[in-house]
């Protein structure tokens, strides 16, 4: 070891006691499976979001003060726009590399939420949320909500026509909350729509409050992960009592940094080549203008679709009104996200499984959970489709009325069918006893004389024999 290294390690260790911790960290074991990288993609998208976001913050003006646009984009020259919209136009057309940063930021946001959702699906379908990881499930679901909040607030900042309509709808949704809706809306928006404070408030949420919470919870999420160690798929030599995999240094570090660079590469490519949110085409927000067709970012699509599918039922009870918006946009997300948040405890009520689990389930071996998960995804998928009913209407040359009717029936029927089909496929796959993921899997469980159990790992050939279906 070189003199300099030795001295700096000594310096740090004598003051912070870092040596044993660092050594332990370098030796941390990571199980090797592609699906464990989904969460990392979310983390790395967040890194890209922070870097591009800080850049954008230097140029963005969170103000609705009216200015006259006099930039290089001729169709809007002379138009009265807000300072917020004007600054986004400047970022897009005048700041060098500004458009690349803006588009990469937007794409990274889409990938961020998408990778969180897919990561969550992996955790759900493999039962990785079971004891002792319920707490981290909770943290993860909160992170999803924060990511959605970040996405929506960021998307609204340019004060363009499309996002302005999104805000208008969000305003209607908060108004639809029973009893306190009016007050909540006025406190949140600062008055009747379009209150002038809303853009500066969204900005504070987007660059301060939500990122602080998000980064804090990411820290908690990772700390719990380190503390509890990773889960792993059952396979030869992998038990409930060990972790089998590659060490942080060098294997996992190389892989993770490689993935970070790759994520960044893909996002930069999208940001450079794939146009996203061209606010100059939508134009500045005017409360009496509207674009058509109008679609939000993909992760809000289900909510927009839910609003399109919703029944025209408003209620008046004792003179008070419950809006038709309440059912699809307040009650439905409340219930759906409530079930998602509490899933580890809901499942435990039925399975009565209180044991610690570090080995993952294969989705086929838990057909009820897999079926429920698939049905839930189907609900969101149908709503997402309905969110684009006007686009499909044009593409398929079918009226939006027809599409809406079909999807309304689909929403009632498809989840049930999805559950049954998934359940049936899982049962079938389970019966084949095929283990495509790990050929050499298998342990033999035997009772010891004193009443305990011991597991004996099987050699690959032996395992094959053991698992050979009798029917064959």
């Amino acid at each position, binding site marked *: 070891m070189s003199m300099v290294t030795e001295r700096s390690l000594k310096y740090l260790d004598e003051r912070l006691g870092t040596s044993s911790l660092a050594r332990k960290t370098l*030796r941390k*074991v990571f199980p090797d499976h592609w699906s464990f990288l989904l969460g990392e993609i979310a983390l790395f998208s967040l890194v890209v979001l922070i870097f591009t976001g800080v850049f954008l913050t230097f140029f963005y003006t969170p103000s609705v003060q009216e200015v006259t646009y006099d930039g290089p984009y001729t169709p809007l020259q002379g138009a009265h726009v807000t300072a917020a919209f004007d600054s986004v136009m400047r970022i897009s057309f005048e700041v*060098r590399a500004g*458009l*690349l940063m803006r588009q*990469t930021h937007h794409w990274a946001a889409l990938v961020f939420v998408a990778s969180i959702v897919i990561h969550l699906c992996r955790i759900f379908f493999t039962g990785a949320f079971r004891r002792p990881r319920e707490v981290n499930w909770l943290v993860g679901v909160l992170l999803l909500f924060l990511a959605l909040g970040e996405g929506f607030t960021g998307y609204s900042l340019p004060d363009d026509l499309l996002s302005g309509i999104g805000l*208008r709808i969000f*305003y*209607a949704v908060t*108004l*639809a909350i*029973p*009893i*306190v*809706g*009016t007050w909540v809306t*006025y*406190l949140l928006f*600062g008055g*009747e729509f379009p209150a002038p404070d809303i853009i500066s408030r969204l900005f504070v949420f987007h660059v301060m409050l939500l990122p602080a919470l998000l980064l804090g919870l990411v820290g908690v999420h990772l700390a719990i992960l380190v*503390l*509890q*160690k990773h889960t792993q798929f059952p396979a030869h*030599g992998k038990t409930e009592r*060990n*972790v089998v*995999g*590659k060490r942080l240094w060098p*294997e996992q570090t*190389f892989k993770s*940094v*490689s993935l970070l660079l*790759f994520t*960044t*590469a893909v996002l930069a*490519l999208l*940001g*450079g*080549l794939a146009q996203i949110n061209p606010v100059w085409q939508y134009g500045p927000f*005017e*409360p*009496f203008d*509207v674009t*058509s067709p*109008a679609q939000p970012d993909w992760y809000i699509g289900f909510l*927009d679709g839910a*609003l*399109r599918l919703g*029944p*025209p*039922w*408003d209620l008046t009870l004792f*003179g008070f*009104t*419950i*809006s*038709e*918006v309440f059912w699809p946009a307040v009650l439905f997300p409340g219930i759906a996200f409530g079930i998602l948040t509490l899933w580890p405890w809901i499942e435990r009520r039925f399975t009565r499984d209180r044991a610690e689990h570090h080995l993952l389930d294969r989705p086929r071996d838990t057909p009820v959970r897999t079926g429920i998960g698939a049905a839930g995804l189907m609900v969101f998928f149908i709503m997402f489709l309905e969110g684009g009913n*006007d686009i499909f209407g044009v593409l398929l040359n079918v009226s*939006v009325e027809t599409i809406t009717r079909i999807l309304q029936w689909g929403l009632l029927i498809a989840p049930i069918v999805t559950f049954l089909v998934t359940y049936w496929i899982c049962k079938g796959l389970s019966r084949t006893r095929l283990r495509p993921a790990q050929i050499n899997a298998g342990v033999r469980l035997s009772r010891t004389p004193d009443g305990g159990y011991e597991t004996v790992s099987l050699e690959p050939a032996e395992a094959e024999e053991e698992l050979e279906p009798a029917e064959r």
Partner: protein
Amino acid sequence: MTDSDQGSERVDVDRQTEQGPTGRELTGAQRKAERRAGIALAVAIVAGLGLFVVYFAGGQTQVEGVLFAVAFGGFGIALGIWANHLLDAREVVEERHELTSGAAGRQALGDALAAEVGPVIGRRSLLVKLLAGAGGALGLALLLPVLSLGPAPGDTLKVTPWRRGSRVVDEEGELVSLNQVPEDGFLTVFPEGHEGAADAQTLLIHVRPGSLKLPPERMAGVPEGTHVAYSKICTHAGCPVGLYRAESQSLICPCHQSQFDVSDGAKPFFGPAARPLPQLPLGVDEENVLVAQGDFPEPVGPAFWDMNRGR
């Protein structure tokens, strides 16, 4: 800390040496991998330098994106090749440590709490109660500034700037007179002095004579039986109802496709909206300019809790 320390101490050394190549000499495949990683890094260097050229030449979004992608991607590919082919990939088995401190540990904490917290708090029960009271009062008081965030809603959602005698103008503030909008045409209008006001936006539609099916008291607000005005704010989620199909005399909200029958009091006949668009009663002054006879009879826009009370 010591617990997990032991955990990593108990690494199964046998399995580390058992799996993966250990030899120092490079195999042919490794030499090939090294070459490929080298090429990827060289490409990354070229792309990185290319970015300088593009930036100082004035910048070009697409080229910048591609060069960034190539630079990051080449770097990433090289590290990926390194990870997969050039490292002694050793599978390591680590024992898990117990997460729980066990019954004894919990007992010890319980005892410690009883011994150290109990005496501090227990002997001064009155003070502790006052402490809780002070904390609660202060906590609630600290929430008060939240109320500064918005005005009290009051009746603001139930009224618009339209008044009896408000002259009708377009978004530029130009007065709108009878027959200015052609038959089957429509125009977004506002009360004079409130051009662009979000809650006052109103659709003035010039319908064909005799096509309206409204009760007499509502026809009284339709000059010549052809100039009908409805709130432009969708009663569903508040989007501007911007599309008008003249042949079927229906208004369509582009956000969620609620459809309203103009001839029948703008009642919704398809989609999620539950309430008709409120009608603005219109009249004509001496100069043939359209004027409002009053505000909308119902609150405009999306529903809220007390919309039907105490107006």
